[in-house]
């Protein structure tokens, strides 16, 4: 074996040199003209519909704004499928995108676990990473090269807790999916609700791959709180939750259902049916909003994808993310330097996004308006109707943990 070890060592030393050389030669010509962007989303598996929303938004943005790029600069999107919550695969895909395809910017980052894994890599690879819909607060702490264009669960849950307390509700029960964003949401809501004088009378974390929710919710019904804080990753699961709440009779009882925007995912509202009526959620975007910027956005969307399709907050996050990336490219005139890019992104803002004024702060988190919405029937369709605005909220978690 000693022989092979020596051989290996020798090869290792030479190998690095050669590979480095290759890397240089490969990078040099690419950077000037074509900017390669690696996008890791969920294109298959039960949650592919969520990925599709982001994908469509990105494609739409590229279609409408490619012309804004500096002359001679082209953008090439390289898409990869992480098949769902699958951090190890996501990390490997990111690694391959950087090493094989030499992408200069990474984006996508649909799931918190996946985004965490990718972020850890970017720290070393020095590749800017715009995570779009990962709601875990910790993602941006993984590396200085990460910014988010979506939201954090603390953002969409902490103010909700305050609001709930103000409604005079005393007892709350928290029901969340058992992964990082769920834990964040649970913590955020619990903090603000108890600070507001309420008490948490019970909490349960439901595994992501669960078939039968009734037993969990029966417990909630038995405890009979004033309000239930719910979080799930949206998509089909949101419907499954709502159906179960209906089966168990909570939706018709006097127990209030509230949560972040995910639990009344706009695409799923038709499947949820009447059971979703009256559910109050907090989120940064609803396609039903009457802001001019949003009306234009929805119009462009339905023009591209048909009247049946509505852009959800996933789409909005994708749109904003791509917007930030394009601005960064423009600002550097197509010559992407990681650190310069991050410097730019950390100061990036859009006063007029579909969801209202937004900006990215030094921590890489997004500061934006949050809207309280209620599910109502609007010309024959269920929609999340905004009824109150909380101006310019950053990530509360970062605030509380600043030391």
């Amino acid at each position, binding site marked *: 074996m000693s022989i092979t070890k020596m051989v290996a060592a020798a090869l290792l030393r030479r190998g690095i040199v050669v590979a480095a050389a290759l890397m240089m030669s490969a990078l040099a010509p690419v950077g000037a003209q074509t900017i390669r962007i690696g996008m890791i989303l969920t294109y*298959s598996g039960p949650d592919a519909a969520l990925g599709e929303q982001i994908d469509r938004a990105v494609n739409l943005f590229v279609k409408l704004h490619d012309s804004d790029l500096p002359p001679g600069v082209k953008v090439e999107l390289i898409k990869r499928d992480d098949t769902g919550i699958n951090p190890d695969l996501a990390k490997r895909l990111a690694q391959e995108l950087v090493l094989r395809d030499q992408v200069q910017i990474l984006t996508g980052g649909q799931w918190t676990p996946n985004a965490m894994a990718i972020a850890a890599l970017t720290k070393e690879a020095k590749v800017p990473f715009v995570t779009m819909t990962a709601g875990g607060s910790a993602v941006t702490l993984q590396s200085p090269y990460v910014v988010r264009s979506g939201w954090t669960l603390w953002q969409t849950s902490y103010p909700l807790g305050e609001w709930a307390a103000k409604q005079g509700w005393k007892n709350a029960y928290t029901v969340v999916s058992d992964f990082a964003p769920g834990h964040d949401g649970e913590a955020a809501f619990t903090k603000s609700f108890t600070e507001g004088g309420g008490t948490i009378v019970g909490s349960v974390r439901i595994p992501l791959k669960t078939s039968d929710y009734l037993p*969990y919710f029966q417990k909630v019904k038995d405890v009979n709180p004033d309000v239930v804080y719910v979080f799930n990753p949206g*998509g089909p699961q949101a419907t*499954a939750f709502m*159906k179960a709440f209906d*089966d168990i009779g909570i939706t*018709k009882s006097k127990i209030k259902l509230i949560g972040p925007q995910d639990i009344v995912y706009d695409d799923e509202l038709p499947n949820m049916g009447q059971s979703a009526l009256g559910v109050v959620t907090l989120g940064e975007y609803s396609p039903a909003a009457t802001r001019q910027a949003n009306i234009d956005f929805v119009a462009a969307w339905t023009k591209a994808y048909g009247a049946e399709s509505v852009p959800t907050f996933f789409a909005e996050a994708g749109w904003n993310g791509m917007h930030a990336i394009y601005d960064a490219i423009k600002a550097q005139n197509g010559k992407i330097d990681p650190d310069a890019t991050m410097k730019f992104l950390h100061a990036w803002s859009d006063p007029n996004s579909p969801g209202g004024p937004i900006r990215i702060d030094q921590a890489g988190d997004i500061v934006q308006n949050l809207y309280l919405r209620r599910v109502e029937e609007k010309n024959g369709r269920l929609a999340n109707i905004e009824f109150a605005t909380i101006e310019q909220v950053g990530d509360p978690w970062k605030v509380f943990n600043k030391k």
Partner: protein
Amino acid sequence: MTTLITILFFGVAYGMILYLISVGLSVTMGLMGFVNLAHGVFAMLGGYATVTLMNRIGIAFLPALAIGCVLVAVLGFVLERTLYRHLYGRSELDQVLFSFGLILVSVALVRIAWGPVAQPIRLPDYLKGQVTIFDLALPAYRLALVGFGTAVIAGLWFAFDRTLFGARIRAAVDNRAMAQSIGINTSRLFAAAFGLGTGLAALGGGLGADVLAIAPGYPLQYIIYFLIVVAVGGLGNIKGPFVAALAIGLSDTACRYFLPEAGSIFIFAFVFAVLIWRPNGIMERR
């Protein structure tokens, strides 16, 4: 008290689905000694058939269920004649691989045909919300599950114990050679039994569509539950799996209510213990 009853009830409902899907597997495994990991495929197809017939063509729930059941039974029969029969008596490994291949193919085809997203089943209104039976509010859908399941099971048991077909199956399970020597055409019997088994699976898949969501991942996601029911219930009989399915349904449900922290750990530990204690299933006479 009401809580306890409700939980019991949920458990039974869950067990019913598991039983309907798995019982066919038990019979076919016992008959042909074929390790068929792909049994869940037929349940999934039953679900897809039902959902599609309802949502796209607008047929009512029960007829859709029946049609789907028949369609899948026929498909099962055909597959048995064309593929499965060639692998009886082959090594376990071959059978495992073959059925695994079948799973992958079905997953792919279903995804191409229906897309990756779970197919929501739009239940008729009489199956939505709650029904109150002497001040005990129960979900209508589960109630229907239990009622319907009981009916099917009663019919199945009658058929198994009282009809010639059932007698033949039992004979073939006990002693294949003997059965053949007394003039039972086992080959045709196998096909029939296989068709019946897949039909039942389809029925379970369709009925349970609101609990076990109908998506391409179905056969892989739930396979272990079906196999567990069969292994614990014992091969080639139809009462053992019933006990097993109820036991698993009840304990799993109880776990979720009383100690959600434990998840399904208990179930698998329980199954492991049972199989060590009774390698041939709980019904095995000692």
